[in-house]
């Protein structure tokens, strides 16, 4: 240390940021001290990401000031923030898959010999850092081949290589198993003990309570609570986040299952092995699991978008294992995919055209004709029924907010009144008002006698909606729980591979 540490390390004063239509940050103050793990909490849309983007030089504040180690700074871009000792691990990793771990770590801050990259030095540097901080990873491994948990280590090593004294982690556990998350927190604690500062952006209560020293809670762009973790409780934080008594864990009443609608036996496809499951009419079956354990592949195989290598799928008793996606839809399947921009909609097309998809060969057309007037009327009906906020049906879908686009997508699929609904991550990135609306729609759909297969990475969503919960781990269904058995602990353990014996999906 050349200078005596100045306290506090990071100080934001009166940060205000306005986007068209919203006040993302409203005079936010945030103070983080050296050596502490500081959790920044809030619901989606509370302004956490905007605040961190401003701190990291990716956005410019309309008003307010930033002090780092006591000096006032303005960052024009992330590299300026990095030079001041900040480092950020983004929620979606910023890594080069085809490059090695060492290349990723030293990228843009390379050790050189005669202008050439000094690979031996890079490797050595990675090993040293890894050893020092307990972040073991092979420097020569290709990043694309690494599991998520290790990629995150590479991200942290990248920051340490650049000498970051303050680490910002955006939703770091979203893609980790509980065990991996625990390992991450151990690393963070040791970093803090060495005098580094950690800012943790998250909306998960458990990790905040277990891993942080202090908590700042944002709601609607404002700081609503500053708490010391040791003196607070989950209820207090949750109440601050939502602004009302906790209904985060609102559990919907169970359904009344009827006949089997979807029956899957020994299904095998890419990343899915020998999966069996049944979904009944009037039942929501939830699939829990850490992202990347075969859930997406399973759903795509069921929807007819991925060929099945072995096993059988029947829909209302009819074998659909090898029929096309169109034919499956005709037999009674609707599907809300995970990625609403890239898969679920055509953002450049009009709202009306987006709402017509899937209906364009059935209810809306006769003899192959698809009159524009019919498409418009259909759109008008769905916009009203599902409360989609769109200026007119002619505006491009890209003009809708995330929540509205999701309502469009879910509304369109529900309108099929198909006996089976496949739905993936229905509320990811959606604000809390829209979440409740979407949950209510899904439950109403079930109560109307339809079968629903729900895939979600949000345990609270799974527990709130599902009548039965299956856990997927490494491509297999490793555990099945009834609504009452599915507590957070049991699910967490199973998601981490703790439920070793593959249980038969008994119904």
């Amino acid at each position: 240390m050349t200078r005596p540490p100045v306290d506090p390390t990071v100080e934001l004063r009166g940060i205000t940021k306005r986007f068209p239509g919203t006040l993302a940050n409203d005079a936010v103050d945030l103070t983080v001290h050296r050596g502490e793990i500081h959790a920044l909490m809030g619901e989606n849309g509370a302004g956490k990401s905007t605040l961190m983007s401003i701190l990291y030089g990716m956005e410019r504040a309309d008003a307010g000031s930033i002090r780092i180690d006591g000096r006032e700074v303005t960052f024009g871009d992330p590299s300026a923030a990095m030079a001041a000792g900040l480092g950020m691990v983004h929620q979606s990793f910023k890594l080069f898959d085809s490059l090695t771990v060492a290349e990723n770590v030293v990228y843009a801050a390379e050790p050189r010999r005669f202008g050439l990259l000094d690979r031996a030095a890079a490797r050595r540097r990675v090993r040293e850092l890894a050893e020092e901080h307990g972040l073991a990873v092979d420097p020569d491994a290709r990043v694309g081949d690494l599991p998520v948990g290790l990629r995150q280590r590479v991200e942290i090593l990248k920051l340490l290589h650049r000498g970051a004294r303050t680490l910002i982690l955006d939703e770091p556990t979203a893609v980790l198993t509980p065990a991996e998350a625990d390992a991450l927190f151990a690393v963070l604690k040791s970093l803090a003990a060495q005098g580094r500062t950690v800012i943790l952006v998250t909306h998960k209560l458990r990790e905040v309570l277990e891993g942080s020293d202090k908590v700042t809670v944002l709601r609607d762009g404002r700081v609503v609570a500053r708490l010391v973790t040791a003196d607070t409780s989950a209820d207090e934080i949750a109440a601050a986040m939502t602004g009302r008594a906790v209904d985060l864990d609102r559990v919907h009443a169970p359904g009344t299952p009827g006949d089997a609608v979807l029956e899957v036996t020994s299904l095998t496809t890419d990343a899915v092995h020998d999966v069996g499951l049944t979904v009944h009419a009037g039942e929501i079956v939830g699939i829990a699991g850490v992202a990347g354990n075969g859930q997406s592949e399973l759903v795509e195989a069921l929807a007819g978008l991925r060929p099945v290598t072995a096993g059988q799928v029947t829909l209302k008793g009819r074998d659909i294992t090898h029929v096309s996606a169109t034919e499956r839809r005709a037999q009674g399947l609707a599907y809300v995919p995970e990625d609403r921009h890239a898969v679920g909609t055509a953002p450049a097309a009009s709202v009306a055209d987006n709402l017509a998809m899937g209906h364009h060969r059935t209810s809306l057309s006769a003899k192959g004709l698809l009159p524009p007037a019919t498409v418009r009327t259909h759109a008008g009906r769905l916009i009203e029924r599902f409360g989609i906020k769109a200026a007119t049906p002619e505006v491009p879908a890209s003009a809708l907010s995330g929540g509205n686009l999701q309502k469009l997508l879910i509304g369109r699929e529900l309108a099929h009144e198909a006996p089976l609904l496949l739905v993936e991550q229905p509320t990811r990135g959606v604000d809390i008002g829209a979440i409740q609306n979407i949950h209510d729609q899904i439950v109403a759909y079930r109560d109307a006698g339809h079968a629903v297969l729900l895939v979600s990475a949000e345990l609270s969503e799974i527990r709130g909606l599902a009548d039965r919960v299956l856990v997927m781990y490494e491509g297999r269904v490793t555990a099945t729980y009834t609504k009452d058995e599915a507590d957070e602990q049991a699910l967490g353990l199973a998601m981490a591979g703790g439920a070793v014996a593959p249980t038969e999906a008994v119904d």
Partner: protein
Amino acid sequence: MFFDSDLLMSALRALTPILLAALGGALCERAGVFNIGLEGMMLMGCFTSVATSWFTGSAWLGVLAAALAAAAYSLILAVGAVTLRGDAVVLGIAMNLLAVGLTSFLLRTVFGVQGTFDDPSLAGLPLVGGFTPLAYLAFVAVAVAALMLSRHVWGLRLRGVGEAPDAAATLGVSPAKYKYAAVLISGVLCGLAGAQLALGNVTLFSENMTAGRGWIAVVAVMLGRAAPVGVLLAALLFGLAEAAGFRLQGVGLPQQATDAAPYVVTLVALFLSTARRRRRTANSPSGATT
């Protein structure tokens, strides 16, 4: 003897322009810019080299001017695709069309001829050991590009920019800067390729004289998976096909059959390489090397 040193010599001559252009294409590909404007850049190089050589009497000034003109021309792609975020495919197609129109227009306004400009006193490139110095330069360029891409810091950053521009940007590396550099270098290389074609392989300019070589270079980038040595092998394949075509013409095959040969060979090579890649990925899910 069908395969003899003459055949190899003529194959090497035929491959030089393709190799230079394809190297440029490979750099762009690595930087994440899909460059299908090679054909047009090359054609600009052809015309500029001939015009400059004619008016100055120096083939070397012709080469220099060709490199500069094609680099300037490549700015259309750089500005359009990188700065304005236009579509690289459409830009490339438009650049190829523009080059044909522009060079034909200039051929008539500058030289007052239509079709072909050809004069015995037009200075061509000297031959050293049967090849123009540009042919040697092409091979040196392969080695330099290979070294830069795999070992140099610049190459590492370029590859990173091509694979994940936003990741590079978060580390303070400007993707635009690297993309511009790659496109401009491809312009220079295409200019050299054009000069080689118009002052080396022949000594004349004729309308649309690149005749699809830029497209073959695009395919060579695909076949060689944008690696300099891979691109060299792909260009060699094309050179052999063209040389063998000439040879077969001597045996009595119609010119049309031999004209088509390089394209057919290229297409078949593409089939085989994609088929092989597919089979391999089917066999080993982890993917294989080489």
